[in-house]
């Protein structure tokens, strides 16, 4: 029997141990459906006269579409409708537009050019799946092939082909200012100069497909009262609904989405592609329509966790203390921006990993290439960076001749330490984790390492924000013009930010509906004096829990809107000019709001 061991001796005073379910064997509430085969997955909804929709896909990484000839396909047996880009009412979207993040950059169906192999150029709706496939094979697309780029660093070279005209530099624009996300904490170059060792290495992670056993799919059907029902296996039901409303220019009240049962997802079912497609099919034919990816499509066009390349440079003292760590990271977003730019913001908040390092600098690029667009996967934005960091820790241990577990314990963050994104670390547990893991693996560690605790030794000096150097390298467009030195954090600083500066905090909007407030009493662990539910009144760095994007360059990237949230005017309820336009780019509204809702 697989065994789980609960180490309740650790952090016992931080935990309320009267839980009735956690830590006890339980029978899943949905398991009876699973073992009898009766769990209703989306594809188990049967409709009389259901049609099958398939996509015609690009065989090229990058090509101009000269023309599409659908006439032969339209006359094939069983074919009800052939659709192309012109059948999509609002054929441009970005996944996170619903939270006002990023620019609309991706069509549901390509029209001017294709930007990755497998991109949709047309659809066929037919009586049977095989008839739809046969007709897809008969759609003639005249392409003029363009040069493509599949490597992140080639893509940011001045000579690289422009993949997506919405992002003409092949990079996401951060804070409307830089072509990468910066993080600056202390002065890494000064620390490298004093370090006994400087250890550099590069790490590459390939794209990884989530590969749920049930592929992405949806069935849509006309309902009474001019509505459409959509059974889907999405992991993001209301995202899919909102995206469908936007792409099909349809009031969200006309959409009845049913989900909640997914045959695995792991992040691969958030991209809201199959739902608008199936609903479009139902709109165009007036019939129930099933649009499901086959396994090859799941692997080819299903958005993976994108590939990432990381270069890490550490300054290390002879005793193993890491005094500086510098990152240069590249996320391969593929042809369109889905979740990668956002993942980078999250990732940057995580650097330099679970370690207290007094000097940290990082440049992370979200790069557009002619690969399949990337999206979420378990450990969103973190996994590849952690892979690189932990490989690098082993390399450092080898360079200084230290036990790799002891090296980690020596450098581990502790409660009260300042993190590079200027928030205090709390509930840290790396030390205990290392100790237990070493014990389980029968890996000897020194008595000193075994005596360390996450709760002791942090804070104090380690809670201070150091004076930090800043630079202006990598303004949007300069790289393409050949005016940048390189991709790594610049060595020539152009500014300094005084010690203790936490940057202007961007507050989360206050809770608008008291139902949404979390009652501190109902959270399973004991909390500090500031419960997370309390809306921050004013920025009070550095301790206040102010949800914010890492404000790595405090002097340079002061956000424009007022830091103190103004309460919503009570008398005027929000009036959209069009259904579901809230997330769509509006004049005057920032496209970049760090993911937190603004009004």
């Amino acid at each position, binding site marked *: 029997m697989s065994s789980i061991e609960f180490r309740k001796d650790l952090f016992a005073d931080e935990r309320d141990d009267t839980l009735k379910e956690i830590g006890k064997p339980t029978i899943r509430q949905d398991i009876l459906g699973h073992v009898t085969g009766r769990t209703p997955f989306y594809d188990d909804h049967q409709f009389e006269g259901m049609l099958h929709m398939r996509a015609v896909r690009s065989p090229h990484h990058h090509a101009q579409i000269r023309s599409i000839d659908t006439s032969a396909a339209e006359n094939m*047996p069983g074919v009800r409708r052939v659709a192309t880009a012109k059948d999509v009412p609002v054929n441009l979207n970005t996944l996170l537009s619903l939270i006002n993040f990023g620019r609309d950059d991706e069509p549901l169906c390509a029209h001017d050019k294709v930007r990755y192999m497998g991109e949709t150029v047309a659809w066929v709706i037919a009586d049977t799946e*095989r008839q739809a*496939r*046969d007709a*897809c*094979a008969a759609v003639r697309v005249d392409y003029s092939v363009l040069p493509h780029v599949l490597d992140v660093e080639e893509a940011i070279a001045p000579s690289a082909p422009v993949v997506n005209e919405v992002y003409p530099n092949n990079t996401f624009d951060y804070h409307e200012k830089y072509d990468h996300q910066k993080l600056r904490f202390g002065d890494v170059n000064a620390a490298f100069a004093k370090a006994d060792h400087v250890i550099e290495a590069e790490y590459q992670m390939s794209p990884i497909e989530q590969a749920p056993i049930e592929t992405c799919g949806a069935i849509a059907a006309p309902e009474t009262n001019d509505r459409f029902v959509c059974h889907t296996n999405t992991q993001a039901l209301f995202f899919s609904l909102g995206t469908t409303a936007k792409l099909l220019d349809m009031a969200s009240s006309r959409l009845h989405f049913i989900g909640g049962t997914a045959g695995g997802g792991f992040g691969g079912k958030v991209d809201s592609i199959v739902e608008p497609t199936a609903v479009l099919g139902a709109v165009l034919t007036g019939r129930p329509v099933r649009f499901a990816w*086959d396994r*090859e499509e799941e692997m080819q066009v299903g958005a993976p966790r994108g590939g990432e390349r990381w270069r890490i440079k550490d300054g290390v003292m002879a005793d193993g203390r890491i005094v500086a760590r510098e990152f240069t990271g590249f996320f391969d977003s593929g042809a369109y921006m889905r979740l990668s730019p956002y993942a980078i913001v999250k990732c940057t908040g995580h650097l330099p990993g679970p370690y207290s390092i007094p000097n940290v600098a990082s440049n992370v690029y979200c790069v557009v290439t002619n690969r399949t667009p990337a999206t979420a996967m378990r450990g969103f934005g973190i996994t590849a960076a952690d892979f690189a960091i932990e490989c690098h820790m082993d390399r450092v241990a080898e360079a200084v001749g230290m036990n790799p577990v002891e090296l980690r314990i020596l450098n581990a963050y502790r409660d009260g330490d300042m993190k590079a994104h200027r928030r205090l670390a709390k509930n840290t547990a790396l030390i205990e984790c290392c100790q237990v893991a070493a014990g389980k693996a029968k890996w000897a560690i020194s008595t000193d390492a075994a005596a360390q605790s996450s709760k002791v030794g942090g804070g104090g000096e380690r809670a201070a924000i150091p004076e930090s150097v800043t630079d202006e390298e990598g303004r949007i467009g300069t790289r393409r013009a050949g005016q940048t030195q390189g991709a790594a954090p610049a060595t020539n600083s152009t500014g300094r930010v005084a010690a203790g500066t936490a940057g202007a905090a961007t507050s989360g909007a206050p809770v608008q509906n008291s139902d949404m407030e979390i009652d501190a009493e109902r959270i399973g662990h004991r909390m500090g004096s500031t419960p997370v539910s309390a809306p921050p009144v004013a920025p009070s760095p550095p301790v206040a829990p102010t949800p914010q994007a890492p404000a790595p360059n405090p002097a340079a990237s002061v956000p424009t809107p007022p830091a103190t949230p103004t309460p919503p005017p009570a008398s005027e309820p929000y009036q959209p000019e069009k259904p579901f336009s809230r997330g769509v780019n509006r004049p005057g509204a920032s496209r970049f709001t760090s993911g937190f809702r603004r009004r």
Partner: protein
Amino acid sequence: MLSVETFPTLQEAAGAVGPRAKFLGGGTLVMRAVSYGDQSFEKIVRAKTVDRAIGSHAAGLRVGAGATMADVLAARDLEFLHPVARAIGGPAIRNMATVGGNLFAPNPYGDFAAALLALDASVEMADGRTMPLADLLATRDHVTGLVAGVVFQRPESSAFRFRKISRVKPKGVPVISIAVHLKRGDPRVVFGNMAPVPARSVGAERALANGSDGAAIDAACAACLEGLAPEDDALATEWYRREVAPIHLRRLLEDGGQI
């Protein structure tokens, strides 16, 4: 438009196969092509009677083309081929996949075909013709007619060895597979996935002609790539295959194929 034609016997079915008509064996490859909309054929040809017999024959042993991998595993006479059959797919695949179909399975498949080639098998066609398996493999993309069975001689005990190298255990698709028949004076070394079809390694065979001691094994490994032309696919690059083929051949020759 797709259609299915069913005939009482293999002989009759053989008359109906052609460029746009595919014969259905166990269907593990044909049905995937059908479901994924393969446009290269539009007719499925079936025979109602399937020859799954396994038994002795004037020239040695005979296996009906319709015998599945599970049938092979159930046949005590074919114990030397059990490691080969067991390495193919998962249990359900083995209940369906036929020996006949394996002779036509494109790379990276064809483990059983590689083993049969190392045994110098000959192929019995439905119209009564027979031909060496090597000839069938060389022309299999445009061969006319259907395979009724394969015939080969039982190897001397422990002279036949097989090794499949795959990334997923226990049921991965092969990166390469190797079948060796150490016949005195005339050994056979066959690689799967090192050429468009299972192919003999003439270099290794020459080196092993006078025995398989340490020096002969060294020479065989050094010469084993002669004339082989592996290709890139999703499992491995051509370069990787060239790098690992001699290493796995050495292991097979030295330790008898234990993985």
